[in-house]
């Protein structure tokens, strides 16, 4: 079980009171808890931030900001998030309701700080850096081309480098 302080698990009146008004008035701890629950519901649903953002009709950056406690969504948006994630707005707001036992059970899994980032693990494991070296060299050359061109003529050595990279000699 996460070793969260009691004040983070309670649902102070401020949570309900300031939803839909100014999230900036909500205590940081409350915002963090709301964000944590949004993330938990999203991950349970198997949605990326981008996918959730598309369903809710907001930018992915907004999802990230809410999940990390930067701010809290408007009440209407909160309902849409809950609907998209198959949860309840009440759970997101207060931590209470039908989703809580599931969320608590997930938290109790191993108590590892990063256990909620399984999706990231799978993503990273699926990435292969092989084949990236040549592309990185081409990127570096393109960056140099842009910079040097803006400053004057492209020097001869740039063309030589480009030819070597393209032919696998560098």
């Amino acid at each position, binding site marked *: 079980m996460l070793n969260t302080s009691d004040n983070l698990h309670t649902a102070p009146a401020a949570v309900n009171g300031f939803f839909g008004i100014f999230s900036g008035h909500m205590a940081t701890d409350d915002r963090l808890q709301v964000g944590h629950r949004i993330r938990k519901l999203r991950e349970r649903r198997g949605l990326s931030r981008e996918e959730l953002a598309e369903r809710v009709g907001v930018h992915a950056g907004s999802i990230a900001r809410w999940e990390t406690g930067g701010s809290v969504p408007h009440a209407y948006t909160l309902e849409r998030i809950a609907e998209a994630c198959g949860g309840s707005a009440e759970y997101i707001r207060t931590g209470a309701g039908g989703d809580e036992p599931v969320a608590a059970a997930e938290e109790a899994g191993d108590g590892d700080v990063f256990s909620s980032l399984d999706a990231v693990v799978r993503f990273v494991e699926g990435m292969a850096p092989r084949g*990236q070296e040549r592309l990185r060299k081409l990127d*570096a050359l393109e*960056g140099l081309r842009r*910079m040097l061109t803006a400053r004057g003529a492209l020097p001869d050595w740039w063309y030589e480098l480009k030819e070597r990279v393209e032919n696998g000699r560098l």
Partner: protein
Amino acid sequence: MEDFDDVAVLGAAHRLVEQARGVVGAYAGPLAPVRIDQVTELLTEAGCHVETFTFQSDTVAMVLPRCDGVYPILINRAAEHTDRVFALRHELAHVMAGDVDGPVFLANEGYMAPEERVADLFALADLVPAWWIAEVRRGNTPWREVKRQIALAVAEYAEWWPPQRFGDRAELRLRLYREHGV
């Protein structure tokens, strides 16, 4: 498990923050994160030239050795905005630390190298600022929970990181706060 010299990493990151504050006093301060124009001021002072375009590779950013009098910092336009915000500070740290003997990529491999950890920590000192950590800590929130919240905040800037990198950076960021007051 490799035995890292965390004391050296923390000390180096703290020195870089102080160095940055010599140019932009607000870096990693009470109003952090600093504005983009303040980051630009830091980059200019360090002799960097930034180019943003869409990469062919999966790299978020790279910094190249000094060329034509400047250090080219290349940012992948295809990367998320938050990734780019992080990348600018990260690559700036490499230049300030004098790490750039060859191309330095911001990517998944090699991220546990000391210079990469210092560069990440320098960026996180501003992006996950001390005032925010203090707010999370208010009410005697357990340090373990504070660290978890830091990890979540870090994820906002670099969701693609491997878990070990999250753990290491969250731990380092918390130590920079507790031991250096940054």
